[in-house]
């Protein structure tokens, strides 16, 4: 204890530097920071860095696939690129972006000055970063992992993949997984213990609710992945036989363990985004969220259901009709709570005075794209359709409609909504619209046609294809769309960089928003709040700004 007191952590004395590194202590202050806002920003930059890397990887893949019988890439490089693309985008783009927003905004939205465990917060971030670096170190160590992002046995065994890539996959994801679990613990304690007086659980912003639910989901799902990774490392490094059927192991066990994590992981990447939308829709429709209880309860239902359906990823593995039928039925049901949410958001917009800011545009586009992704997902619950389409580009199209049309659209919406708070400056709405249309058109060009390719039987993960009727032109459209998305992402990153200095000054509350984070300055001072406004509804800031028209008076939710 006494020794610890002598360690001097450089702490900023002035208000936080926003997005610049030119603080009073320079870069070292960022590296040593335990402030939730700086850690949140670093998470977000991490995600920006990796979206560029993962994007370049997939553009190379799309160049290879643009024309039939292409030899731009050889099969080994192709395998590594799509594996790294998937792993990067899921574990080091979507997840850190979600954690970035959560780390930055959960304390602000509940009126706290930091997370419950600031140092563990930093630990979580650095684990994630080094996990990502470890994964990429594989390129230098003799070859990247090449068995796909879900890394099926027996392909993940030494005899099929003898480069150390998969060992780096295991250790990198394990490290990042530890960071993810510790961050979740931190969120749970923060949300339960540090809410400002007056904010009961039923007055919590929906985003905070979703992070809370998500954290429990992570605590329940990640042990399965982490255990599987350790077992695989034992297989590869110490010649254990967990996943090696030749020696009494089970290759299918990997799939069970992976999808027991993997299906909840889809929700881990979408629930927080539902939270973002549940902030964006009310603010830009100038209405309270429709059916707060329904939105929260359906979030809980989604989280619980996530553990009852993973076997639908294994319909083609020969588990038998009895097993398949049960999981087909349960998988058809998981659409229900998500459908409830979609209708809640529609009802929130209905009759509101809608402002079509870029954040709102992405939210509206999400409703369309995510519904497409949801419906194609439901189609997989029907076992014969699954058998026909599994491992084709139809699956690729489906999962990108969920991960991009769902998760990424939400995160971009969050960037446009919260960037003014983080940086103190606005992102240009005009350029934002350019970005929106480029990205949405590029996205649909890329993936809509892949449904058709999949239905025609084009297998995923094969490095080239014969010149069959229609395949060439559809793949060319898909690659051009990918290029368009690439240009759009570059435009976004350019905007993020330049607006730090040149954007219009935002002020503390540019959107006339509802929640506590907008009551402090932009960017917030080191200590978020000295005093917090009274919280009596889910829109405390609006109540404060319009004392004669408060939610709590209207709803009769009074505090005797």
């Amino acid at each position, binding site marked *: 204890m006494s020794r610890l007191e002598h360690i001097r952590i450089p702490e900023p004395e002035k208000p936080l530097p926003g997005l610049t590194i030119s603080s009073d202590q320079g870069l070292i202050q960022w590296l040593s920071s335990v402030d939730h806002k700086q850690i949140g920003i670093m998470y977000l930059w991490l995600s920006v860095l990796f979206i560029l890397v993962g994007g370049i990887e997939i553009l190379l893949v799309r160049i290879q696939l643009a024309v039939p019988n292409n030899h731009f890439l050889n099969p080994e490089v192709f395998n590594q690129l799509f594996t790294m693309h998937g792993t990067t985008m899921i574990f080091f783009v979507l997840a850190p972006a979600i954690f970035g927003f959560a780390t930055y905004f959960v304390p602000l939205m509940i009126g706290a000055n930091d997370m419950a465990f600031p140092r563990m917060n930093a630990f979580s971030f650095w684990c994630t970063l080094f996990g990502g670096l470890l994964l990429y170190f594989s390129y230098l160590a003799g070859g990247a992992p090449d068995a796909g992002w879900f890394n099926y046995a027996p392909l993940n065994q030494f005899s099929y993949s003898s480069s150390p890539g998969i060992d780096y996959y295991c250790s990198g994801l394990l490290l990042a997984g530890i960071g993810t679990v510790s961050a979740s613990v931190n969120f749970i304690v923060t949300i339960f213990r540090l809410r400002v007086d007056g904010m009961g659980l039923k007055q919590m912003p929906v985003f905070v609710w979703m992070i809370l639910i998500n954290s429990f989901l992570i605590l329940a799902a990640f042990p399965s992945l982490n255990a599987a990774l350790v077992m695989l490392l034992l297989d590869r490094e110490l010649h254990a036989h967990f996943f090696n059927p030749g020696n009494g192991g089970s290759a299918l066990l990997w799939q069970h363990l992976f999808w027991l994590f993997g299906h909840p992981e889809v929700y881990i990447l979408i629930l927080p985004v539902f939270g973002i939308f549940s902030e964006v829709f009310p603010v830009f429709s100038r209405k309270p969220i429709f059916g707060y*209880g329904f939105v929260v309860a359906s979030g809980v239902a989604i989280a619980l259901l996530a553990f009852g359906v993973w076997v639908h990823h294994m319909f083609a593995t020969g588990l038998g009709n009895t097993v398949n039928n049960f999981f087909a039925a349960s998988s058809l049901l998981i659409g229900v709570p998500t459908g409830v949410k979609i209708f809640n958001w529609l009802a929130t917009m209905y009759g509101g005075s809608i402002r079509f800011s870029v954040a709102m545009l992405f939210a509206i586009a999400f409703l369309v794209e995510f519904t497409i992704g949801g419906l194609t997902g439901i189609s997989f619950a029907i076992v014969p359709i699954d058998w026909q389409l599994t491992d084709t580009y139809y699956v690729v199209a489906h999962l990108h409609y969920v991960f991009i049309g769902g998760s990424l659209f939400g995160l971009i919406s969050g960037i446009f909504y919260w960037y003014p708070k983080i940086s103190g400056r606005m992102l240009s709405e005009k350029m934002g619209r350019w970005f929106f249309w480029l990205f949405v058109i590029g996205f649909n060009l890329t993936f809509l046609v892949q449904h058709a390719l999949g239905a025609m039987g084009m297998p995923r993960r094969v490095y080239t294809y014969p010149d069959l009727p229609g395949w060439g032109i559809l793949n060319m459209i898909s690659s051009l769309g990918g290029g368009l998305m690439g240009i759009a992402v570059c435009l976004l990153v350019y905007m993020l960089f330049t607006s730090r200095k040149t954007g219009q000054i935002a002020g503390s509350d540019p959107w006339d928003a509802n929640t506590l984070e907008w009551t402090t300055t932009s960017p917030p001072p080191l200590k978020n709040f000295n005093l917090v406004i009274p919280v009596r509804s889910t829109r405390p800031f609006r109540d404060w700004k319009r004392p004669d028209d408060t939610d709590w008076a209207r709803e009769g939710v009074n505090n005797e």
Partner: protein
Amino acid sequence: MALLSHWHFDPLLILFVAALTVLYGFISRFRRPTNNWYFGSAVFFFLLATCSPLHFFGMHYYFSVYMVCHITLLLLCGPLLVMALPHKPSPFVTTRLKAFAASLSSHPWLLWFAGVGIMWFWHIPIVFDDSMGAMQSGFSIISSIHPLTMLAGGFLFSWPLFSPIENRQLHPLAGVLYLFTACISCSLLGLLITFAPAGTYHHYIGMANMPGRPWNISWQDDQQAAGLIMWVPCCFLYLTGCIYLLAHWFSAKSTNAGRRPETIKPLILHENGKK
């Protein structure tokens, strides 16, 4: 059609139901229609699971049907009985109920174990086969103990969730966690049965060639189906419980956890730039 005539009324169980009805009448005096409705359904499901053709099928032909009976007792009858208890009974009953609640309230995890443990216990293959064998060979004491322990397990398990003494109830969110962890344990058991080697439960192999066995589903498929019923639909029952708890919680007219906002000082905004 002959199959539907297999009603078997175990005198001990009928006696039990009669005693239960008298006891319930004494406690509630049948005053509140909703509670009576809960009680009526509990009795109905209990008889369905212990005396009806469903029970006969489960005993003699299909593990999966037996599993349905089992879940009915544990996850329908148990909670319904707790929910049937009146919220404002006579003072005499109130003190008894309060004493009962007090003795249970300090250890909700024990009640969790009661519910989950009963479920696991009766599915240990050797226990299962022996008890089924005993029950089949006529009116043995097992055939009454078996459903009664499951009913009791279900009752105790549901107590902290739906207890009539409101301040003894778990917080609804804690209730969700309580149900979710039980659901995991139930999935685990279901998963074990689903993927267990075919024939782990001997009882039904012998039954496969019984005359009058309907539907002709193989005993291998039947064992899987039984495990899957425990795994998937059973989880949906727990989930329904969670949704019920949340719905009640959100619809309750609540205050902000009893805090008075007058004590919260107003904010002084730090403005560094006006929009």
